[in-house]
C-alpha cells in the first residue's frame, strides 16, 4: 500500500485518496479549434516520469496536487491546489452565440 503525504492530514494509505488525472490547463473554450478541445478532453500525455496530478482525500473532501513518478511509483511532493490556482478564474463571454 503506497503512502501519500496529504498536506492537511499527513501520511496516509493511498486508498484514502481518489486519483483525479493530470493537471492540465484547458484551452479557451470558445475560440480553440475542435482538435485542440478534443486533445484537452481525450488525449493524455501519459508521461513515464514525474507528473503533476490531482488527488482527492475523500475523508476530508480535499483536492490536492501531487508530483508523482509514474515509473518508480514514488510521490515526490504534495501541496494544496491553491499553490497553483490562487486567483479567481473568470470566463469571457462567448464571442458569437450559437443560437441553433
Amino acid at each position, binding site marked *: 500500500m503506497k503512502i501519500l503525504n496529504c498536506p*492537511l492530514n499527513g501520511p496516509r494509505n493511498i486508498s484514502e485518496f481518489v486519483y483525479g488525472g493530470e493537471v492540465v490547463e484547458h484551452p479557451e473554450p470558445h475560440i480553440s479549434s475542435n482538435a485542440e478541445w478534443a486533445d484537452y478532453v481525450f488525449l493524455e500525455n501519459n508521461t513515464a516520469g514525474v507528473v503533476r496530478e490531482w488527488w482527492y482525500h475523500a*475523508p476530508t473532501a480535499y483536492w490536492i496536487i501531487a508530483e508523482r513518478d509514474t515509473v518508480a511509483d514514488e510521490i515526490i511532493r504534495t501541496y494544496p491546489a491553491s499553490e497553483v490556482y490562487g486567483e479567481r478564474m473568470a470566463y469571457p463571454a462567448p464571442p458569437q452565440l450559437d443560437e441553433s
Partner: protein
Amino acid sequence: MSLAPQDKLSRSPIYRQLAELGAEFAEVAGMACAMGFGGGLEAEVEQAKSLAICDLSALPRAGFKGREAQSWPAAQGLVISPDNNMSLVQDDGALVARLADSEVLILSDLACESGLCAAITQAWSPDPDPGVYPVPRGHTNCWFMISGGHADALFAKLCGVDLRPHKFPLGAIAQTSMARLNGIVIRADLGRADVGGTLAYHLLTDSASAGYMWMCLLDAMAEWGGAPVGLTALREMDT
C-alpha cells in the same frame, strides 16, 4: 420504566439496536439517550475502562465551514488550536476541533453543561454574509465514544491510521477511513490523566451507516470482551 425512544421526535439512528440490548433511556438534548444497560454503574465503569462503546448521538454538536472558519468562531469566543487536526477543550467542557483552515467542529461535553453548540448556532446569521456557514453535524454524523485500554487495538482492526496513545496524543484528530466509511476520530480520554484517566476516542461517521458501523465495532470488540455502556458510566468517569 425508562423513556421510550419513539416518544421523542429526534431519534438515534441505532435506537432499535440499543433497545434490543436492554438499554435504559433518558432524555438528553431532546433525544432518548442510552444511559445504561442494566448491568449497574460499577460494572459499566469497569467495562468502559477495559473496552466499551457508547452512543452519544443525542449530544449537541455543531460545525462551521468557510473561509472565515477560524476568525468568526474565534470572534464568538471559541479557543481554536493553531494546528489543523487538533482539538481543544473549552472552559465549559465543550471540545472545539480544527478540521481544516476552513472548518471547525464543536462537540458538547458529556455532561451537556456547555451551551456552546446552541449559542453559536444562534449567533450565526446569513446577513451580512459571514464567509462561514453551518455544517449540520448533528444530523450528518452519528457519534460514538470508544473507551478503554483496548480501544487503540480495536481501532487497529478497522482503521489504517496509528491511533496508539504514544503516537496519537490527547486532542489529536484523524479524519480517515474506518471499516471503509469516512469518519472523524478524536482522542478525548475520560477523566484527568494525572489521576489515571481512561483512554477514549470520539468517533463521528455517516449517520445513514450508523447501524453498519455499530455492528462492525461490536464484532471487532468481542475479542477483548468489549460491550456497549450507557452515558452515565462515561459521565461518572469524566469527572
